[in-house]
């Protein structure tokens, strides 16, 4: 097994990865101007949260067995996220139809 020599990752490493993913997603949401990219970054933040849930679920053992509640929750998150993507993409499409743009710099109606 070529992967046998690799060490088993610990909870901390999972959490670091998850935090990194979350931070990259947040940075993308803040920095990027294209609304579709922002949307993708949002999904990345969701994925980071899901990864955390799975990691905790894996390392939290009850009677020697992993606690599967967290993984159950992740399924729900994925389901809801799928629905959310459908709604979000629909909003983006209708936004594009209304404004002919998906660049946030040009969407300044909220300026006070």
């Amino acid at each position, binding site marked *: 097994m070529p992967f046998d020599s690799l060490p088993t990752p610990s909870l901390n490493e999972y959490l670091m990865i998850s935090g990194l993913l979350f931070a990259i997603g*947040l940075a993308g*949401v*803040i*920095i*990027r*101007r294209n*609304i579709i990219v*922002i949307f993708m970054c949002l999904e990345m933040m969701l994925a980071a949260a899901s990864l955390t849930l799975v990691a905790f679920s894996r390392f939290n053992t009850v009677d020697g067995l992993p606690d599967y509640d967290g993984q159950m929750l992740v399924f729900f998150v994925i389901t809801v996220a799928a629905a959310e993507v459908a709604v979000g993409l629909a909003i983006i499409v209708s936004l594009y139809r209304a404004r002919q743009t998906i660049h*946030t*710099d040009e*969407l*300044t*109606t*909220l*300026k*006070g």
Partner: protein
Amino acid sequence: MENLPWFLLLIPFASAAIIQLGLKRNAMASSLLSTASVFITLIIAFLLLGKDSASSLTWIEAGNFKLEIGYQLDQLATGMMIVVTGIGFLVHVFSLGYMNDDEAKARYFGCLSLFMFSMTGIVLASNFAMMFIFWELVGLSSYLLIGHWYQKDSAADAAKKAFLVNRIGDFGFMIGILMLWGITGTIVFADMDGASLGTVCSCLAGTAILLVFCGAVGKSAQLPLHVWLPDAMEGPTPVSALIHAATMVAAGVYMMARLYISVGADMIPTWSADTIAWVGGITSLAAALMATQQSDIKKILAYSTLSQLGYMVMAVGLVEPDTGMFHLYTHAWFKALLFLGSACVIFACHHEQNIWKMGGLLKKMPLTGGTFAAGYAALIAVPYVTAGFYSKEEILTAAHGSPLFWVAAFVAFLTTFYMTRLFVVAFLGKSRSENADHAKEVGPIMFVPLIVLAALAIAAGFKPVAELLNAQDPRVEGREHPPIALIVSIVSLVLGLAAGFILYKGKTSDPLSIPLFRNKFYLDEIYQKLVTIFQDAVAAIVHFFDEFIIGGLLVGGATRSAQGVGNIFRNFAQNGKLSGYAYLMGLGAVLVIYFTVFAN
């Protein structure tokens, strides 16, 4: 007998209340009720002559603090009471005729009763608090009566002026009462200890006396608060006779006499007494000068009243309250007579008040003219046969040795001069207008009071009469009269008569024209200007405060600072950039997490 003095207060009050509450529609009944009430008080006043008693009811009590409503009868009070109720009764009777056709007769008599109630209250008062209450009440009834014909703007304005000017004096009066209270520890006249005035600095005691005197300055119309009295002649003439000549305006002198008797005349600091004397002297001089150039018969008499009040105040200031009260007593009779006489003249001439449109009235109205002549003789102090002579002699005696003596002598000359002018122009010669030509003698209800008053104007100065009426009489054993006083008063009388007759005999218009005197030294105009300037200044300051401090700084400042902070945040945070909002939201989330998880 013990409770009799209370009826002096209660009867006029009951009359006023009944008229106000029930008899307003019945003019005849109101006038008779009012006259009957004052007749009963007159009888009570006679019964109380010479009595010396005091009684009081507690009105307010809290700890050591006690206010009483009470009466104090002594020679001062009973003598004054005779003057008040006597003239009050005669004026009521006169008013029955004079005000017969007035539309608001019931209101008139109701106000007269209210006045009688307030005035008896001042006379009977046993302490300063009660006196102050009734002091304000006479001010109120004076206001109501001056403004009796309130449909006329001039009457309404005069009433307002009288009230406001009196308020200025009364404010000082109140502070003076409080200061005296602080110094002597009591406001009850009988308990006042003059010695305590000596224990404080004479500047403090003198200030207290002068502040109390402020009340007299307002009520007795001394300079500089005299301006209301000539205007008060807008009221019905019997009111002028009762309130603005004989009784209410003399209340200031009565009050000062009461104060002097309570604390002891020796305890009054000299400087404040001198100030009072000079205020009186200057008032009498200025008013006499103004009187020489008036052409309204009532205005002449009003200035004459001012001048005579100045005499009384001068006597009070010379620490001879007895002399002041004696002049008050004689003056009350003959000045009421002169005013009622002028009322008859005005009545007969169809409300003509200008003396230059009268003339020849002595022949047309012999009774009025004759009694008026008696009052005239008393006012100019014809020696030995009139009451005015005796009291003026006492005042000259009191002033002897001070520069005020010559002021008083000159005023005596001026008095003779302007009264001669009035008498010659209005009563002698030929009629100068149709109204005067058609003048007829008034009815008996009006001339009978005149005759009674004329008798008193002549006789009141004689010793037995003064004793009978319990007047304060300074002519005690051992009082010396300097011969110069008699000489001066006779010389000024002769000079005044001569000047008046020579200048005014047979004239149809005033040969003298002195605008300064005719326009009352322009004091009204000066006051008008001063009040305007002062009022404008206060208004400007208040406006500045309101507009800039309250409006601009407090209210406007709060909105502007809220707006400014809002603007800062709007420009910086609410910029319309989606990424900016996302950043802030992220920052917010981080902060919330930081504070909830790590900051503990």
